[in-house]
């Protein structure tokens, strides 16, 4: 096969943007061409490079694999040769006799669209006149689906015989050399040992080699030195981290739910991340790896009634693969239709991930209509959806967090229960002592307001109002009724205050008729409100400083809402409601649960600041917020009524501290004692709280708990309201083998709790000697190849279909796919073969011949110079500075959006210096340095990254606190570790950063720099260190650090 258009380009382009080439060459020939440009036609147009893209763009929608109008398929050379029901499409050499040309020339085709441009027409004609170069000579009469190479069973390959055997180490080299020889080229000479170990270390582990590793390799002169070095890295636990991350991107891993702006947390996703890392490190056979992710629950025969064991927990963890899709159903609001569409969106995302990660088919295009380019019908799409549907049944939907289960073995559960009992006993003891002491020594308070709701209902209005004191407008709309059960309303029932919201939006509230001064005059004095929560709600909202609620008079602020949540912490909204409101944060620790006494205390802490603390059972909690006097105008206290805030309260109190001067002597003593004693209690309780046995581990799996197969319909135009025909679960027909790979033929007898559909699919896709497993193997080895060499054998890793790029080395792809299956699906076996090939070991310095004959390095006439990807870059900076925290696994390290908008990892976090894959992968909050170096903000998934070169990357390497801090640690490390002369220090510094000692010129430049820079810092006590930090900064910013040769 003639290589694609890549061959026309030099390597410079390849790393800039692979995708852009496709824009120009394959997908859209006419995308940018302008009529006014010269008709620069190739001398001898070729089918694959010149004509196929044109046909694909202008003809294939109607004459393609999906829709063969006139039984004509112009998507393939074979189809062009075969022609359609009206006869041959092309008669080589005779354009006027060719139907294709006739229809195009008289503009009768493309039907209903713009005619072909002059350039397109001329190209087509020239190609036919020139003998229709590039068409296959012989074609079979088989159906088209069978013909596309990627949808066939694996083809036997013959390792080519090449003339120049000297650069052949293994079959991989043979396939490559075969193509190179046709251009008079060969695999390049072996790279130097320092280059090789740096290359292999980054490739396999994503980290630079340590100095000890480098020394061991350099001093190993045995013939097996290289292979042994490769083996050591493949055995490293960091291998799983590196290659696990590739799979996690492919699988669409994220630590957040996405879809909506809220982008809520996915707190348990990390367990799947760790499963992936562990599976790779154990070299779990890839087919098993896929089966577990698709159907681990069914393989392990999960039942909520049966005890779990470590293996079944592992299998369940794997199924989180199917939960990687964005899922906004925990944040859906709006009408029923929208909420339902949000649920379908989860199924759609999952199908898209399945298609691109496993099948290399753009399945998602068949959601609304039959695929325009691939032999995938809309029915195929919904058959696949039907496989997933039992676990994501839209009519029995579970929100993300409701799908989580406790994942512990019976022994673990028992042990936990015991530990918890002991702990609770201890806690109770302390709390009882505290309660008892406090009741004996009550805090002196002045009661400003109290309502125990023991009077008749009709009296509510004597204490409460739907208008704030001093405000003439009611607190939002509709107005709260004061003695009614008709929402929105409050009423006294059973001696409690019932708060009944109306389920509507709108910011309604009630207020005390009494107004309070919320800013105690003296330092350390306070005012507080408290109430007993009798019956809770998702949000228990109450307000203080109720002033001008409608916010008409701008000067008059106030209205501070506390939104106590079941799950803990009360959010504060200042100047509520209205567009100018702000949220200064959240206070407290405890969630709002019935049976406790809640409230807030506002304490004058001096300098015009007022501290707001959440009270639980009379005690202030941690996490406070400071407000200014202007935020706290005089006003009422009240409860909010809207949006799910229906709850019941009792015993409302507004109290203030008593001025020390007004205290009796006895009260004074109690007050002092109370302070120290409550501090003591708090300390004890906090200490004990920390020792609380951790909850049994939770897991976020995919489960299918009914054997009943739900009915699934085709959704016309993809809209869930438009139900079409019913479909049965099945994989895409184009990949079904007619004889021995029917998906559901043998559901295991002991699989009683689920449909077994996903297990059927998992077995179907991994069964050897089938079309499905052949495609899976091709897609997989192609992606691995891409990760080794920067570009896949097929340049579009998520699309091996008709519309994808053709393979540059089809036989090599077949060979590797075959080897993968033959090796028992061993990922490490394939890596070993690739890493040990001479192609991988060759130098990255091109010869002139190579530049001329293989400009863009499609043929791999040299190893591609590769920039470190985002994670490797950040990890290598930390590794070089000696700061990298190598801890593996566990919950993510949270990231945060800093004041300047950049997403960073707070340096103070204990996990701040962990490897990048352990940083929070929040979809809307990709860590700044990673995003800038092309890490994806995952929407569905990512199978290829597009390396960019932009000035912001230079700025981050020069100026960011992250880069400066690594430079500082790096410099200090070198100065500390290497005594004596600059020569030794520089050698070490270069070795650490670039994997080699400096050249003479580099060393001399560095020495001159150190002297000049020291004089810049003259007079400073640490001028030497400063100069070294600046040097370290440049070592890390240099291309020798950023690139792997």
């Amino acid at each position: 096969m003639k290589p694609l258009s890549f061959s026309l380009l030099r390597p410079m382009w390849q790393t800039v943007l692979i995708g852009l080439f496709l824009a120009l060459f394959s997908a859209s020939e006419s995308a940018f061409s302008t009529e006014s440009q010269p008709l620069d036609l190739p001398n001898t147009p070729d089918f694959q490079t010149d004509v196929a893209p044109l046909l694909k763009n202008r003809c294939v929608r109607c004459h393609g694999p999906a829709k063969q109008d006139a039984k004509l398929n112009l998507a393939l050379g074979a189809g062009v040769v075969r022609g359609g029901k009206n006869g041959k499409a092309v008669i080589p050499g005779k354009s006027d006799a060719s139907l294709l040309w006739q229809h195009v020339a008289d503009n009768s085709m493309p039907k209903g669209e713009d005619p072909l441009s002059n350039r397109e027409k001329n190209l087509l004609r020239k190609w036919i006149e020139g003998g229709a170069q590039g068409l296959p000579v012989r074609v079979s009469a088989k159906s088209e689906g069978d013909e596309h190479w990627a949808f066939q069973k694996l083809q036997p390959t013959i390792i080519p015989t090449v003339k120049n055997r000297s650069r052949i180490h293994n079959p991989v080299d043979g396939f490559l050399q075969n193509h190179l020889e046709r251009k008079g080229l060969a695999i390049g000479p072996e790279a130097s040992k320092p280059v090789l170990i740096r290359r292999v270390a980054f490739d396999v582990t994503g980290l630079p080699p340590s100095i000890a590793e480098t020394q061991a390799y350099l001093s190993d002169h045995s013939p097996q030195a290289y292979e042994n070095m490769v083996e050591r890295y493949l055995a490293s636990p960091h291998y799983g981290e590196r290659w696990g991350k590739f799979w996690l991107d492919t699988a669409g891993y994220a630590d957040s739910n996405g879809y909506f702006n809220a982008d809520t947390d996915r707190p348990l996703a990390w367990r799947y991340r760790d499963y992936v890392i562990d599976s790779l490190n154990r070299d779990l056979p890839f087919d098993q790896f896929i089966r577990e992710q698709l159907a681990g629950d069914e393989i392990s025969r999960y039942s909520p009634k049966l005890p779990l064991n470590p293996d079944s927990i592992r299998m369940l963890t794997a199924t989180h693969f199917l939960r990687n899709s964005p899922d906004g159903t925990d944040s859906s609001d709006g009408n029923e239709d929208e909420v339902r569409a949000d649920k379908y969106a989860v199924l759609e995302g999952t199908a898209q991930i399945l298609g691109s990660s496993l099948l290399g088919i753009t399945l998602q295009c068949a959601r609304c209509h039959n695929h325009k380019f691939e032999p995938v019908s809309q029915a195929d799409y919904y058959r696949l959806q039907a496989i997933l549907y039992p676990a994501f049944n839209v009519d029995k939907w579970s929100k993300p967090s409701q799908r989580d289960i406790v994942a512990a073995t019976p022994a673990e559960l028992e042990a936990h229960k015991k530990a918890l009992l002991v702990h609770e006993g201890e806690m109770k003891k302390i709390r009882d002592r505290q309660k008892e002491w406090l009741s004996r020594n009550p805090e002196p308070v002045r009661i400003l307001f109290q309502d125990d709701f023991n009077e008749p209902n009709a009296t509510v209005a004597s204490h409460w109002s739907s208008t704030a004191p001093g405000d003439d407008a009611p607190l939002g709309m509709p107005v709260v009724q004061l003695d009614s059960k008709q929402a929105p309303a409050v009423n006294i029932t059973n001696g409690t205050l019932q708060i009944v919201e109306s389920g509507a939006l709108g910011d309604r509230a009630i207020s005390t008729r009494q107004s309070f001064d919320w800013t105690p005059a003296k330092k350390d004095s306070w005012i507080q409100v408290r109430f007993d929560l009798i019956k809770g709600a998702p949000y228990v909202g109450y307000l203080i400083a109720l002033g001008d609620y409608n916010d008409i008079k701008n000067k008059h602020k106030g209205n501070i809402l506390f939104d106590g949540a079941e799950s803990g912490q009360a959010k504060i909204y200042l100047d509520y409601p209205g567009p100018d409101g702000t949220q200064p944060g959240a206070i407290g620790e405890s969630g709002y649960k019935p049976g406790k006494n809640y409230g807030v205390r506002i304490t004058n802490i001096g300098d015009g600041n007022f501290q707001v603390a959440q009270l639980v059972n009379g005690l202030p909690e941690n996490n406070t917020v400071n407000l200014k006097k202007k935020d706290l105008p005089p006003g009422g206290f009240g409860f909010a009524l809207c949006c799910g805030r229906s709850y019941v309260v009792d015993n409302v109190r507004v109290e203030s501290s008593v001025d020390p001067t007004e205290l009796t002597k006895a009260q004074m003593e109690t007050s002092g004692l109370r302070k120290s004693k409550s501090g003591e209690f708090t300390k004890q309780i906090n200490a004990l709280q920390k020792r609380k046995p951790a909850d049994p581990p939770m897991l976020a799996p995919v489960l299918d708990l009914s054997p009943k197969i739900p009915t699934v319909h085709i959704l016309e135009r993809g809209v869930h309201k438009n139900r079409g025909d019913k479909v049965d679960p099945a994989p895409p027909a184009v990949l079904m083998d007619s004889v021995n790979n029917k998906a559901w033929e043998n559901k295991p007898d002991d699989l009683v709790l689920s449909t077994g559909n996903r297990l059927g699919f998992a077995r179907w896709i991994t069964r050897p000697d089938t079309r499905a497993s052949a495609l899976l193997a091709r897609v997989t080895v192609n992606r691995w190849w891409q990760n080794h060499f920067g570009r896949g054998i097929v340049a579009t890793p998520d699309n091996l279909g008709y519309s994808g790029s053709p393979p540059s080395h089809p036989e090599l792809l077949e060979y590797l796919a075959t080897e993968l299956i033959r090796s028992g699906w061993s990922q490490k076996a394939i890596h070993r073969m690739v890493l040990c090939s001479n192609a991988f070991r060759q130098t990255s310095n091109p010869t002139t011949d190579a530049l001329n004959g293989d400009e863009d390095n499609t043929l791999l006439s040299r190893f591609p110079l590769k920039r470190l990807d985002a994670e490797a870059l950040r990890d290598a900076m930390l590794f070089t500075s000696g700061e990298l925290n190598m801890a593996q696994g566990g919950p993510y390290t949270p990231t945060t959006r800093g004041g300047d908008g950049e997403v960073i990892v707070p340096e103070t976090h204990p996990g701040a210096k962990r490897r990048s894959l352990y940083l929070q992968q929040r979809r809307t909050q990709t860590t700044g340095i990673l995003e800038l170096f092309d890490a994806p903000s995952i929407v569905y998934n990512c199978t290829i990254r597009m390396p960019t070169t932009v000035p912001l990357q230079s700025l981050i390497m020069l100026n960011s606190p992250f880069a400066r801090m690594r430079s500082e640690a790096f410099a200090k490390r070198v100065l500390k570790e290497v005594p004596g002369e600059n020569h030794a220090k520089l050698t070490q510094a270069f070795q650490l950063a670039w994997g080699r000692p400096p050249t003479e010129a580099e060393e001399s430049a560095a020495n001159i720099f150190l002297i000049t820079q020291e004089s810049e810092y003259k007079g400073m006590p640490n001028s030497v260190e400063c100069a070294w930090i600046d040097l370290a900064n440049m070592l890390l910013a240099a291309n020798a650090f950023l690139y792997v040769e």
Partner: protein
Amino acid sequence: MNHSNSFAPCRRAFLGRSGLSLGSLALAHLMSETGAKGAGLPEGNSFGGPDNLINLPHHKPTADAVICLFQHGGPSQMDLFDPKPDLTKLDGKPYQGDLEVHFSGQKGNVLASPFRFSKRGQSGIELSELLPHTSRIVDEMTLVRSVVTESVDHESALRLIHSGKFQAGDPTWGSWVTYGLGSANRNLPAYVVLSDPGGLPVDGTRNWTSGWLPALYQGTAFRPGANPVANLATPADLTPAARKNQLRLLEHFNKEHLSRYPQNAELHSRISNFETAARMQTAVPEALDLSSEDQATRKLYGLDQPETAEYGTRCLVARRLVERGVRFVQLFMAGQPWDTHSNNAASLKGLCKRTDQPSAALVHDLKQRGLLDRTLVMWGGEFGRLPISQGKDGRDHNRHANSLWIAGGGFRKGYCHGMTDELGYKAVKDVVNVHDLHATLLHTLGLDHKRLTYPHDGRPGSLTDIAVTKAEIIKDLLA
């Protein structure tokens, strides 16, 4: 630098191969300074100067820059742009007929607008009393009263109006414009977002994502304050001389490295990016520094009043950026302030106080500087609001009618397009969907929406995706 010559032949081969194409020049754009200078733009095809990183438009444009004043939340059209006397007649009565509401539990009765409308300017287009300043530029604008969208969900509707697609992850039209036209100033980002100091808008940074276009084309958010771009400033502990020494050392290192890969354009580009970065360090603060603006200008934008100072500052910065060759500037508001589910009337007063004067000032100022002819200013949100109340005094989302205005850049002046029904619930005449709007906007920028494509999902992806949307240019909107 001379090394550009070393790969110039390759570029010629490249251009020759593909037909002189926009995409190839987008690559030149990617290549930064070195690449651009070697690009050899054909004469007569660039506009804005031969030395700039400018790509080719498809046809003669009427605009080469965009300022989008985006109003998050859905401004209430019947209170601002689309007078409906029948609302007043039926105020408080039940709405007759079906109505799609977002919050179904709170459907109220017909709600009149409390605001007075009058004819404005020569054109006599009626606008609300809430927009006294916008009223003064009414003869410059095309007001569209018949915009419809496909979702009443904020996020989906935002993605639709920004990227033409419901779901997250597709490129915004700012990215498409930047991809199509490149930058006219290599020291400033081509696509700048001036976000609200109060915080991110709903849907956050996805409002300016480049989706599956290269990351290069995503919006760069300038933040208010001393560090408009993260890591722009040289660390305080480095003197200029110390930094200069560093860069000299780095150049030495990189040149030695490069000597082994002389043809590698990416390495060239990365080296020259350090120079570009240094220029950005001066260019960005300069563009944001308003000290050279005279009192009259400051007053025009309302910088002297507390209500308008913040938004006015960003509008003024937008003008300065466009003056300096930035292609696409977008202003956002924190959260979604126009989402007036309750307190509609009172909230609108505050919001108009904040935005009316600065928005109008921008158009006026661009005009007096002769920039309006080539700059397109668009004002609007993701959807409109309902003619009935939500609760007592709010308005719920409405996807069937929305108003927005566009001034300059070849759009018709003093023109009002489209009509809604008597109560303003549905657009009924000259209905404009988001895709047609996109096609038209691109058209004025010299870009053919059918040909501005990038491979995605195995086919040419585009903003308007005509195979699905059948988007067409709305000729009536063009001057």
